[in-house]
């Protein structure tokens, strides 16, 4: 079930949101005396409500906020432009002005009044053991509301769901062996929803902003079997790596910080990792993982951080390299492993 371009263009404000003036006024008056700017109230009485930018609700389960921090590093477009011209970031725990019940009301209002008209972004994995008590936000009738419940409730009514970062996309470190809290990826919590995985630990800002832009301008991007946009995750790090020449020659770096040689023998996971970071680079293109002399740790993969028992720095078995679209001169490497 995809999201058509037309559906999103409608969301972008080329149509009108059919929320009645009376309803909105009622919502505003229910905020417990909280402040709504005077012009809002005034305009409510004067005219019908117009749609704004694409409404986005960004919630966090078992997260470190690193994907949020990474996303605000976006350079072109800068984050202020994204917030004012592309999306309407109605809920974000680290950025929003409101707190407590005033903040939660935005979520419950969206659930009832904006069905199918918002995008849900989830950051962090979702704990499922003991009914998800390991991550909660807010209370209802004296009972904690779990991240699992928020994802189920908001995911059911979202036009699309973006799982940002490897925790939300695949479970990430919280789901690492022995997965003490039963941490799960979002798509397993809400299997019927349209979920796009944007992994990475953290996700690259271009991947988040780029995916949202793709959805707005051209619909849901083509996804790989892990629900990742092929546009950003279609190629192996190894196949795009600036040190690939060393690998093909069998010239291996001996220690971290060696500026010559392939990092394969230092445990590099480039041969099993999918993303365009070797080309895209990080933080306004100033550097990236392997360029700084550090092996890739495979943070965009569903196997992160266990890598099937190998951990982050074990040398990949050649069999594993071979399995995954191997294009190198395997014999030379085999001698080295």
């Amino acid at each position, binding site marked *: 079930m995809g999201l058509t371009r037309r559906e999103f263009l409608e969301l972008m404000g080329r149509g009108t949101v059919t929320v009645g003036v009376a309803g909105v006024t009622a919502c505003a008056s229910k905020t417990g005396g909280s402040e709504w700017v005077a012009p809002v109230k005034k305009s409510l009485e004067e005219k019908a409500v117009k749609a704004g930018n694409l409404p986005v609700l960004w919630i966090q389960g078992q997260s470190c906020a690193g*994907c949020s921090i990474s996303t605000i590093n976006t350079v072109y477009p800068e984050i202020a432009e994204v917030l004012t011209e592309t999306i*309407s970031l109605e809920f974000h725990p680290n950025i929003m002005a409101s707190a407590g019940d005033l903040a939660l009301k935005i979520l419950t209002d969206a659930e009832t009044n904006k069905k199918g008209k918002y995008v849900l972004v989830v950051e962090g994995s979702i704990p499922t053991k003991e009914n998800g008590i390991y991550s909660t936000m807010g209370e209802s009738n004296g009972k904690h509301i779990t991240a699992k419940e928020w994802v189920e409730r908001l995911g059911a009514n979202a036009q699309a769901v973006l799982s940002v970062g490897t925790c939300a996309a695949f479970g990430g470190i919280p789901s690492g062996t022995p997965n003490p809290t039963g941490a799960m990826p979002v798509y397993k919590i809400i299997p019927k929803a349209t979920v796009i995985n944007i992994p990475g630990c953290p996700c690259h800002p271009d991947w988040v902003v780029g995916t949202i832009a793709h959805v707005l301008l051209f619909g849901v991007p083509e996804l790989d079997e892990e629900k990742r946009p092929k546009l950003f995750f279609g190629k192996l790090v190894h196949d795009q790596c600036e040190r690939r020449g060393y690998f093909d020659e069998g010239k291996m770096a001996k220690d971290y910080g060696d500026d010559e040689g392939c990092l394969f023998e230092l445990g590099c996971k480039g041969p099993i990792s999918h993303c365009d970071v070797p080309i895209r680079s990080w933080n306004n293109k100033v550097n990236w993982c392997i360029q700084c002399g550090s092996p890739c740790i495979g943070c965009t993969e569903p196997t992160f951080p266990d890598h099937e028992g190998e951990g982050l720095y074990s040398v990949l078995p050649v069999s594993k390299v071979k399995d995954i679209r191997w294009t190198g001169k395997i014999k030379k490497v085999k001698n080295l492993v």
Partner: protein
Amino acid sequence: MQKITIDPITRIEGHLKIEVEVDNGKVVDAKSSGEMFRGWEIILKGRNPVDAQMITQRICGVCPASHAQASTLNLDSALGVKPPENGRLIRNLMLGANYIQSHILHFYHLAALDYVDITAILNYKGKDPKLNRVKAWVKSEVDSGRTTAAAPFLPRYKGNYITDTELNIAAIADYLKALEMRSKAHEMLCIFGGKMPHEMGIMPGGATQKPTVDKIIAYASRLKELQTFIDNNYIPDVIEVAKVYKEYFSIGKGCGNFLSYGVFEEDIDGNNKLLPPGVYIDGKLKPFSADKIAEYVKNSRFSSGSGLHPSKGETVPQPEKPGSYSWIKAPRYDKKVVEVGPLARMVTAHLSGKNENVSKLIEGTLKIFNADINALFSVLGRHAARAFDCKVVADRCAEWVKQLDPSKPVHNKFEIPAEGKGMGLTEAPRGSLGHWITIKNKKIDRYQCVVPTTWNAGPTDDMGQKGPIEQALIGTPIKDPKNPIEAVRVVRSFDPCIACAVHMINPDGELISKFRIL
């Protein structure tokens, strides 16, 4: 008596719930509870020790550089390896870049919306194209009449926001500028770290990025821009806000005791630090000793032993433990409640007389307000101390970057021993951070972190002493219980990071079991 629950506390890192009881317009009781658990230390058990410096960074996306630093110092000591000079300098430069990033983010993007009135932009009459775009956006948003108009900046608590239009507009302009500035601080880190958040370029035994001249000037040039911003915008903005809210020099005092482990190694052995270790208890500065740390659990959801040193600590969960109200333990220093963070670092550095730059900043600012050092123990004192911390670190980074030598190594080789023990103590932007490791059969047998927000947001201890944030809340005036803006101002002044604070490990590495829905 009225009970107010604020859940979630937004504009902090992580899931925090605050409950306060208000009587006659003042907070008379306060409880702080952490609401998220991932089990990091359980996940670390059995892994390659070197994985720890990548995995522990993911405890917190705001200050991963600090976990990287604590973890590599911890591994350095367990593996018996030390970084070369370049390695030490690059670690400081990466950590320093993240201090700058984190402090700017905290003041402008996490705290400022409690003071600055964003709607003042509607009165902007100037020609700055960026501000005019924001003005046009806010106008069209409020005209739209949607309940979520101008999200995420509205809605907000009703309260006494700044009324001076000029000051509001200057602050809004700096909010925008600060977005760009904090991004640049991340770029500085990435120049050596390869990526941020979650840097790659750090390892036991040093760093991985060779300090070639292009890297040196790329860092130095960005740093110059940030120093200009700190001197001309950040510090003056804090002072301007303080002038409007002078009452906050006496709100949110807290326990008045402070702890700093010391941070930024000035030599390979770590004997000298830019900001020295120290403890300020009952009005006296004392030398710091790691042996005096103990964690208490009477009011935390654990059945395990109380009052244990972190290297011997155990954590057996008991969710339904009577009277308990938090997943956060209550660490104490010599049985005393202590606050950690920039204020603790500035107070200990100033009183030790070891950093004259810190003393100059503190004395100069107290003079502006005609106040004594007690004024620092407050909401505004914390914001001011954070700005000073930022400046002192940035200015020192400018010197460290010049000491890099492109012809020298950045890393010393290490081997993982069959058995070993380590400790790594540093300071995260938001306070004292310690990592402890035990290695058996070349794998992690035990990994323990005691993080800043555990110190600050922990609950009441076995001796009946409330945690620093709880103590700071008590006595806070609350004008309108429906809009407890004063309470969130106090909590946010600590820059809490809850993802960091909540850890549990069963000493046998067994899975946690039998939770009921609370």
